[in-house]
């Protein structure tokens, strides 16, 4: 009681239309007790950041399977910071090679989840990171 539900924005940056993962995770997080907003496909980093701020979310989950993650994920973090938002947890997933993960983390993506990650692991990660604040 008294705890606000964690609010999550699941977003598809870029032109990629593969939304199976985004939808499954949106539903799993909701079933895991979070409030989830899903942007739909083909969102620019600018649109994602605007929605994140407007909805006052705690977490932004980015999904990309097209290979454009190296450009798009960091851009979302950069724009959030530019708007003075630095307490939103940004995580990502999709078809992302191991070699790309260190740079994404350095750019502010808190975690990168590759194919096969149990949704439970993502829920646990979010809860642990945000636990105290909610």
């Amino acid at each position, binding site marked *: 009681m008294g705890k606000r539900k964690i609010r999550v924005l699941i977003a598809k940056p870029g032109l990629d239309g593969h939304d199976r993962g985004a939808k499954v995770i949106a539903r799993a997080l909701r079933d895991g007790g979070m409030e989830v907003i899903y942007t739909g496909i083909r969102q620019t980093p600018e649109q994602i950041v605007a929605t994140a701020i407007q909805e006052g979310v705690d977490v932004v989950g980015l999904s990309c399977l097209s290979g454009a993650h190296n450009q798009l994920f960091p851009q979302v973090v950069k724009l959030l910071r530019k708007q003075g938002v630095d307490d939103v947890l940004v995580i990502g997933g999709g078809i992302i090679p*191991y070699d790309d993960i260190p740079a994404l983390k350095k750019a502010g993506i808190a975690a990168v989840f590759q194919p096969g990650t149990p949704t439970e692991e993502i829920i646990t990660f979010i809860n642990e990171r945000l636990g105290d604040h909610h």
Partner: protein
Amino acid sequence: MKGKFDVEKEYGRWQETALKKALERSPERRKSFQTTSNIDLKPVYTPLDIEGLDYLKELGFPGEYPFTRGVRPTMYRGRFWTMRQYAGFATAEETNQRYHYLLKQGQTGLSVAFDLPTQIGYDSDHPLCTGEVGKCGVAIDSLADMEILFEKIPLDKVSTSMTINATAAILLAMYCAVAEEQGVPLDHLRGTVQNDILKEYTARGTYIYPPKESMRIITDIFSYSKDHLPQWNTISISGYHIREAGSSAVQEVAFTLANGIAYVEAAIAAGLDVDSFAGRLSFFFGVHNNFVEEIAKFRAARRMWARIMRERFGAKQPTSWMLRFHTQTAGCTLTAQQPDNNVVRVAFQALAAVLGGTQSLHTNSRDEAFALPSEESVTIALRTQQIIAHESGVGDTIDPLAGSYAIEALTDKIENKAFEYINKIDEMGGGIKAIESGFMQGEIADSAYRYQREIEHKERIVVGLNEFTAEETPFTDILKISPQVERYQKEKLDKVRAQRDPQKVKDALEKLKQAAQGTDNLMPPILEAVKRYATLGEIADVLREIYGEYKEHTIIT
């Protein structure tokens, strides 16, 4: 029927004695055994399960109605399926090299993967394309790129499949223009454009225009091709992406054929005679893990389409009744964990596709849970097909599993369940309505979620993922697309824009605009614009301006 009585009696006896005793000693591994389509499987199938099977009516002979046993009288005894690896990345130059490599390795057809900007009608320098250029396919901005893509590939000798939908008319026009430059007459061209917009709205996402306007472009391609490209498959009605988005096997068949019905209806409404275009419709399915269900699925789909075309649409030509299809092994079954295991998965899936009578096949590579495949991985995938073809012997007799009690019973079951869906979609007003209302999307999302939960609850075992796991070193030997590609592609585009005749481009685009506002076929003005080196983005924009853009309705159920 003394025989039937005996089997029935003996089946009852077996259940009461041998089976019962065995179950009392130790129960089965699970309470129930189900396929991906929630079809309950019996412990054993017997002649009782195919009791009503009328061989001539339900199966017939290869190459004859209802084509359950295959669309060709000789099938793989005549020639093997076309081995067609989907490939494309970075620039036209690099992809052209991959094509030459694949053809040298014994591949028998080409299959072009375009990057997302090309698929969604944006030039490489459009602001929305940041990071996407050359990533999941080859970047094509103008005829200049297409000329490079097919350099030294004789278009009268290879067949080419192009995974292109919203911008299919533009890429087909570019292909025709390259053929003309090579001196190849259009009626010699063999290949396919995917051109299936309906599944883009439900499963794949590369739509541009709203459904009605998209259907007009599609029927214009049908109409143009019947006069100019008689050997070209004008559409590849695709279940693959529906399945990849999470559907079951039954839903894959049902939604694909429902979309097929919508295209046939649209073409008839546009004034085309059904037999003038139906023979050039082709299909594309995925092949998943459940071996028996998948084989039955292909057989059921063939029989259903034959019945739909003959009975529902009154098509008279046997070629109009045939469901010819391409298959790709299911990308969603590839694991990032222990990726070498994917080679084995792909082999079983490919075998199911061959036993199901596919006309062409793409086998996925082991590393595709990380990136586009490396040359080494894609070679193993191609070799897998060659081993099935040349070593397994499964192609030496046609439809060898026909008559299997389980296969025939499942073929019937899938047909019945898929027709139930199609009837439901008919009641909603057809495929387009079922998409606009979100019905298909909702059904697919539900199945996807169920599948994920089954894995997480270990009701479904995926080797290396939720069982038989192991510590492993990251798999990093993958194909990398250089970030230079985007810059290089933009430079090429600038050069094309600088070298062409701007007035001729303007005139051609104006002609296209007039056709789009009226009812003239769009293909001739698109072909004209392409030859003037109008860019893909410029051509797509003319139609955007007139037709508007589709916006999806996203609902998380």
